[in-house]
């Protein structure tokens, strides 16, 4: 395996694919390399070419979660989502760009069962142990998306600038289909460079976990109010970060037998999130 330092974001992006994999903070990628979930002949190191830091609402994709969690200019939901992610050590290295693209924690996927996401034809979680899995968008794959900041950015209506285009964060994600099992819509040679985060009137992030720190969300709820409109987005409930049209959309959830409790938790967290937002 080789380690390369590209000269520019374009050079980095165009070198990706065919065994060349992008490396930023490494907190998601390095364990996957070790477990054989990702094969790489070449690691393309992004640190010096992808923007880092926050300037007038634009966040470089190479900014770490630790840097974001303490930036007073950023919306509360994003700060809280970053602060609730992972551990202090991981937040120091993990970038927001990498965090958005992190892989599911579904143990069937991680243990390389020949599941739907791996190109197979069934979701092993459906018949197996699935207490951490999805309540929405789960007819093909029942995995849950683990990113807290992604839910916050979705509620905030953030937009991404990549090496190819500009798009709303919602369009970064897709549910897997028969032809394409990817959960993200990035091209193989496309890099996220910056995020543009609107400033809401108020926002908050709440996260229910299996212990009191350092766990992936059972359910995470981001709420952001822009004038009369409040947007809600959830982590841990679908294969992708999930935008909730309104609280009653939870009644349209499709839980598995073992994830029904997540609907209860989501209901309560949504109610509390909304109640915590100042009304004016």
């Amino acid at each position: 395996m080789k380690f390369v330092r590209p000269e520019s974001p374009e050079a980095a992006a165009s070198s990706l694919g065919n065994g060349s994999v992008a490396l930023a903070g490494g907190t998601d990628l390095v364990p996957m390399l070790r477990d054989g979930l990702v094969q790489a002949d070449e690691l393309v190191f992004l640190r010096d070419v992808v923007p880092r830091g926050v300037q007038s609402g634009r966040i470089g994709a190479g900014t770490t979660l630790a840097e974001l969690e303490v930036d007073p200019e950023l919306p509360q939901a994003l700060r809280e989502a970053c602060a609730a992610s992972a551990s202090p050590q991981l937040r120091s290295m993990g970038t927001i760009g990498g965090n958005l693209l992190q892989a599911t924690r579904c143990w069937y996927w991680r243990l390389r069962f020949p599941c739907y996401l791996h190109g197979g034809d069934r979701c092993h979680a459906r018949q197996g142990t699935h207490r951490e899995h999805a309540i929405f968008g789960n007819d093909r794959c029942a995995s849950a998306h683990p990113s807290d900041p992604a839910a916050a950015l979705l509620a905030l209506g953030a937009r991404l600038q990549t090496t190819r285009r500009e798009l709303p964060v919602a369009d970064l994600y897709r549910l897997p289909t028969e032809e394409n099992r990817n959960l993200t819509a990035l091209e193989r040679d496309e890099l996220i460079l910056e995020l543009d985060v609107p400033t809401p009137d108020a926002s908050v992030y709440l996260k229910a976990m299996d212990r009191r720190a350092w766990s992936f969300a059972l359910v995470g709820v981001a709420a952001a109010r822009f004038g009369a409109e409040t947007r809600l987005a959830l982590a841990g409930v679908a294969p992708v970060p999930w935008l909730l049209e309104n609280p009653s959309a939870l009644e349209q959830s499709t839980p598995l037998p073992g994830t029904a409790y997540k609907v209860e938790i989501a209901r309560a967290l949504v109610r509390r999130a909304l109640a915590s937002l100042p009304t004016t």
Partner: protein
Amino acid sequence: MSAPPARKLQLGRVGETVQRVDAIPKVTGEFAFSSDLFAAGMLWGHTVRSPHAHARIVSIDISQAVPMPGVQAVLTHEDVPGAKHYGLEFPDQPVLAIDRVRYFGEPVALVAAEHPEQARRAASRIAVEYEPLEPIVDAERALAQEELHPNRPTSGHGYREDPRPNVVRTMVVRHGDPDAEGDVSVSGVYELGIQDQAFLGPESGLAIPDGEGGIDIYVATQWLHVDRDQVAPCLDLEPERVRIHLAGVGGAFGGREDLSMQIHGAMLALRTNRPVKIVYNRQESFVGHIHRHPARIWAEHRADRDGKLKCVRMRILLDGGAYASSSTAVTSNAASFACGPYAVENALLESTCVYTNNPPCGAMRGFGAVQTCFAGEAQMDKLAAALGVDPVELRLRNALAPGDTLPTGQKLTGSLPVAEVIRRCAAIPVPEPDGLPRDAIRLPGGSGNVTRGEGVRRGVGFAVGFKNIGYSEGFDDYTAARVRLFTDRSGGLVAEVHCAAAEVGQGVSNVLVQVARTELDIVDDVLLAPHTTATVDSAGSASASRMTWMSSGAVRLACAAVREELDRRGGSLDPGEEIDIERIYRHPRTTPLDPETGQVTGERAHVAFACAAMRVVAEVDTELGLVRVAWIGTAQDVGKALNPQAVHGQIEGGTAQGVGLALMEEIQTEDGLITNASFTDYLIPTALDMPRVVAELVEDAEPDAPYGVKGVGEPPTVVSTAAVVAALRAATGRELARVPVRPEHLAGL
């Protein structure tokens, strides 16, 4: 002359808080754990493991692995020089799988290479052809399925006859009239999942061939000599040619009683004639050691209207997994302590452990008593509710007292101050509830920021537990210690203590030094020799809360003999003169329990007992099902605190492991495969999950023990799970018959 060593041992006597003798190297990072060892010319070993829980091995083809870069050896069962099987109590476990694998992760082949990555790559090229077989994964059904061990390795050892398939052991305790009725009866079916010891130091060690066909193995383990006695026959070597040396141990809690890499590393080292180091990664560690037995327990408690227990009936089913390990003793313990520390005239307690293709189970802190305490204390609370009696008062009314007879028929001749422990615990003032509003971090949900107090209910739980101290049922347990007295270069009198007592973090090294300092207070310095099989006889296992008692006894005997000899020589030693004496300490004898009745056949089946009471305050966010353990108070029967700070440390740590079992720890399996073999998916308590533990030490001297000491490691783990869940029941009104309790069991009230 060279200067004395820069770090001087801080010495103190028995009863004082003394800084750990290994504290400084541990805080500087210089302490050598087994995974830190290095030898020139060292190779890295790697173990190939079965991906199936149950399969026939059709063929093993190593031909693609052998020529790979850096590879120096590839070994299979054919390369095992001596006995093909080993085991802690029964040799039912293959060194390397022969024609069948019986659990997920069972070792099948070994590779040694120059770099660990080379070893891993070569391992992936070993082609094992398996014919998967239907795994046996349900303990009850296993009693009617095909035998996993048709030769029944555990029968014929004086245990009760139980001809059902896959029985490792059945024990029945029949006391008084098992059909005695009471005024009130409460029942329940309880379940505990598989808990893992989750010690942080990975299994690891270094095997170094001595150039003459023998081997030195540096390893993190709990019992050096029993390791040697299993390793030697498999290598076809005399015991003296296999020397086990204790390397730094990163926690154990029972998980290092069975062999890990010892035989494997030695085989690779002897084949290559080079040192071989093996270090398991975390996933491998989860599959590579035994776990706590999951259990299903059917219980019925009958009592009179005044709250006196009339009859306890309990049936315990333990899933032992693929190999026996120490399951026969866990089975016995579960039944022996099933009634809890209460006087009961009538009991029928039946405990069965079965073989399955689930992960093998064996020793973990608490050893069978954790499971029955969870069930039994839930039952006591049900009784209290049915009778309208205060739960603490109910326990006091039934508390065992000296002179009472246990359900095994053993009379309590030693110390077991149950009533005092209950009273002292109950008397610890419980803090007023934290007011609202308060920071989310101090509410259920912790750093998830989920509540300002909505839906939070507070509950208080109380539980009492006990178990044996030491080995039982006639096991000839002993500990050797050797003390060498000499005059050093500066003219000081120095005592060097040799004892193979494994320091696993519990602080036994300090015990050895403190005892020597107390018994030989004439010396200027006490040195601790390395723990090894080469220079002293067995110290027995660092388990069963026995090591402080047994090693104190041994060191005290050796010191007394040394002192006597010194007096005989006029009270001083010339330079170059030394006294070197080894002594063996034994506890009062025990005998087996009768296989038909589970009653004592002699005076005692267990050496001694220790108990603990615990009160837990928990807050539950009833909408989300999230828990905060707010406060823990406990009183524990410790006999004598040799080192009070260390005793508190054991109580705090043991309690944390029980909190983990109560709220978050469970090895998940699917058809025998472990699906959560990582710290992401097997959660243990973090710094935010554990409150302070207020602990009262009840020092009621054990008459048969040196200094009156008892072991302290296990009682807090025995009682804490029961106490936490009692608090959750009080907060939610839910039955909570299974642990770990997860948010889905508490949410949506």
